[in-house]
């Protein structure tokens, strides 16, 4: 493999690539949790990221919980917990009107 003909790649999971310094990373985590919370609510799920420990906690309203390491895992966990994938092209997200 050649490492010299491309540009440097961002380390870690790709969804973490948008924040470079620690403060920005933390801000990104909080904002991400906020978006997840609002989106997953429609599927009867909760999301929480306190910024202290790694991972995002996903739970159901009946109390089941799981921790996802990154966003890709969030969707897998969410699918397992609610039995169907969270589809961003679902009419509830593409319909007109603010959340």
């Amino acid at each position, binding site marked *: 493999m050649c490492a010299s003909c491309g540009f440097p790649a961002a380390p870690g999971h790709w969804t973490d690539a948008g924040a470079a310094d620690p403060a920005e990373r933390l801000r990104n985590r909080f904002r991400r949790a906020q978006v997840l919370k609002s989106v997953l609510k429609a599927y009867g799920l909760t999301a929480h990221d306190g910024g202290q420990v790694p991972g995002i906690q996903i739970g159901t309203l009946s109390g089941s919980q799981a921790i996802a390491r990154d966003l890709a895992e969030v969707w897998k966990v969410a699918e397992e917990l609610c039995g169907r994938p969270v589809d961003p*092209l679902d009419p509830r997200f593409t319909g*007109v009107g603010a959340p």
Partner: protein
Amino acid sequence: MRLTVLGGYLGSGKTTWLRHQLHEGQFRDALVVVNEAAGTPVDDALLGRASRLELLAGGCACCEAREALVALLRRIADERSRIDSRTARVDRIVLETSGLAEPGAIVEAIRTDPVLVYHIVVGEIVVTVDALHGLAELRGEPLGRRQIEVADRLIVTKTDEAESAATKRLLATLRGLNPGATISGAVRGSEVALPDCSDAAPERLPDVPSDAEKGPVFPTKLDVDGSVDWASFSVWLSALLHARGDDIVRVKGVVRTPAGRLLLQAVRKVMQSPEILPEQPDGEGRQDNRIVVIGRGYEPDDLRRSLDYFARAGKI
């Protein structure tokens, strides 16, 4: 002029392979022509080592942009004819097609053009095949098969990420589809040895549904402007790839973030680690904050509406 046509399905590694060949000094004096189906070019930014680069964006060169391709090649031939034969002239052209192009149709367009036929000799058709997704594409995409069938040389990419047994089956299938082509392996453009496939059985390919049944794959441009922050964008895109990864064949684009200009590239459900592109002088960052999603099975407007929803989510 000798023409090398570089084809292969969406996200199969055409640009990566070409970029490494240019880095190694292959095609050093060649004129590189890049064709992209979407109006927003990305690949030209990655091929900085080409001595001369022409871009043909906004349509696939085997169908809607065929005339534009012929006009471009005629112009190149015309310019070359005006130069004294003792001075250095373009002797080689590398055409990187879009992932939706049929290399066969492009070659036919050149061979049947009354002007180009006297200027251009088609040297080789190189087609890249993704070891991770190649078999799935051969099973389901008529275009994927046609690309393989016309190749003189097949390059199986990403073999480091695929399982050896799957690679062997893919190799045996490729041999069956196109016994005449030479097959080699590449990882990020560097040549690698391929496993011996003599004991592997080729995949029995089903009759493919025609494009009319499944609907064609189409590109959609999305502006990721100031209203969309990285957090909501990454939540949205990761969810989209998880839920619709079988319909979304390719995502690419450059997004500006606090961490720099990130080059995002996904093939089906697999997202590459984003490359951090160097800053460009003003005016040249024109393709920033715009991604192209290529796929089928959804309304283009729904992508925009859904992204807007995610960008607003949690703000109220």
